């Protein structure tokens, strides 16, 4: 089982204000908030890519700032928002990049991890296809397989469902749950509140750099919280698991 991600009084000047939380693996945690709330900044801190101005992020007992770059990379798999692939690699070569933090590991072990990641993302038939010839959904799965090939304890993804149609978004979300069920920690920045409500185990709501709510989707994304943070009139419709958010016309008053 992976170690917990522990945030203590995290401050990034002008972007995050005294965020504290304790994230346990084995669950899908969503970070939600309006534009400019600090979601991506928080995820960068969790991935160890941004050093906070004050406070700490730790993996178990160890602060990320004290971990060697390779060791951190082996534990925390990170998928940036709108990930790029500069060269037209084949799917298998792209996925193999996930093995870079495992310098010196036996080739057999590396190949097994690549094969497992390709299988987990259902890319078996696309191994040799070049990235430029993939559809949006296939590309998103290939990029996720790259993260999985590292075999990290935590999967941190920034808006992984953006630009995916309904079926592909649902399929990727299901795979995140499979990873969580295997004992990994999964943290996703999600723009779509209905996805967070229906498919996250826990939700953190940020607004202007502050943690406004932290709890189950029902608690953290209650109509009252959404009204307060997004300044819109909303109502949840339907049953848990397939809820939809009805949004009234926004008031510009805060």
């Amino acid at each position, binding site marked *: 089982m992976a170690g917990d991600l522990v945030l203590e009084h995290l401050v990034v000047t002008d972007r995050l204000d005294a965020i504290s939380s304790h994230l346990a693996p084995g669950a899908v945690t969503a970070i939600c908030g309006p534009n400019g709330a600090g979601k991506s900044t928080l995820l960068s801190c969790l991935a160890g890519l941004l050093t906070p101005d004050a406070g700490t992020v730790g993996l178990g007992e160890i602060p990320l700032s004290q971990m060697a770059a*390779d060791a951190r990379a082996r534990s925390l798999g990170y998928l*940036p928002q709108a990930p790029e692939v500069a060269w037209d690699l084949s799917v298998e070569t792209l996925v193999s990049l996930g093995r870079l933090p495992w310098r010196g590991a036996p080739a057999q072990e590396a190949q097994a991890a690549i094969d497992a990641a390709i299988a987990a993302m259902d890319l078996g038939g696309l191994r040799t296809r070049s990235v430029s010839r993939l559809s949006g959904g296939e590309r998103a799965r290939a990029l996720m397989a790259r993260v999985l090939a590292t075999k990290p304890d935590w999967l941190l993804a920034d808006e992984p469902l953006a630009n995916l149609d309904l079926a592909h978004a649902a399929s990727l979300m299901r795979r995140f749950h499979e990873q969580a069920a295997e004992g990994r920690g999964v943290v996703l920045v999600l723009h779509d509140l209905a996805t967070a409500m229906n498919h996250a185990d826990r939700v953190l709501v940020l607004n202007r750099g502050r943690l406004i709510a932290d709890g189950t989707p029902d608690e953290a994304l209650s109509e009252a919280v959404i009204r307060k943070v997004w300044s819109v009139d909303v109502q949840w419709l339907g049953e848990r698991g397939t809820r939809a958010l009805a949004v009234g016309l926004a008031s510009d008053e805060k």
Partner: protein
Amino acid sequence: MNRALWALLLALAVVVPLSLLAGRVWIDPFDPQTRNALVIVLELRMPRAALALVVGAGLGSAGAAMQGYLRNPLADPGLFGIAPGAALGAVLSFWAGYAASAWLLPISALLGAGGAMALLALIAGRDGGIALFTLAGLMIASLAGALMSLAISLSPTPFAMSEIVTWLMGALADRSWREVWIAAPLTGLGIGLLMLAGRSLDALTLGEAAARSLGVEPRKLQALLVAGVGLTVGASVAVAGIIGFVGLIVPHLIRPLTDRRPSSLLLPSALAGALLLLMADCLCRILPLAGGELRLGIALSLIGAPFFLHLLIKMRRGLA
């Protein structure tokens, strides 16, 4: 070892011996009576071929590393400002009367390259960001170019001016083993450093943030790149003047033969750069041109510039 590497080694094994026979005086290996054949081969053609291999290998691998680092198939080793820095050093040695010592020119050029590298490291900042680094390189190139023009315009005699301008065009003519001994170890070390950066360059394929999440340390990578490109390009300018476009063309031609990871491009690009420069130099030697032979730098620019335009047009169509 992959197929591209074998094919390039085979091509070199064929072209190197042939290059020793080609030139103003064609040498027939089956006719021992050719006048001064041994002297021509040992003292003129062999060092020249060796130098073409060394300079071409350095420029080819530096180009592959630069394209990987900047994630752009149009990047060229010249973007870091190291070649203009080295050229400025060389021009200053002409100005000071390089005839005083045969070592003065290459050493001044290496000092110029070292100065550009130091300035680049100083300006590029602490976060290892690529955009700022590239801008710093362009500014250094621009400054070195301006200083070079100033030094040329103030040159003490018209003879010195003509010497400078001719040298800047880049060539491998009239070189000896001395230049090979200067360039080979520096280029070898430079290629070695670029190879060490290969893993990080692969990670950069996914963008800066993803590369850092894969354990890449941007400042360490930058230092390896500056030292590797500095040594290979600095050594090349020091012994051959400015030879452009090798670093641009070669990785582009080789990329489709590999799995397209920047690291798998480094060694084949070194071999292909060596091959390209050797063949271009042979072409310069055998082309009948009134008033001497075609300068290698000019020949490669004549090939390279249209190639660059072709690339741009292809990229505009989204096919590159």
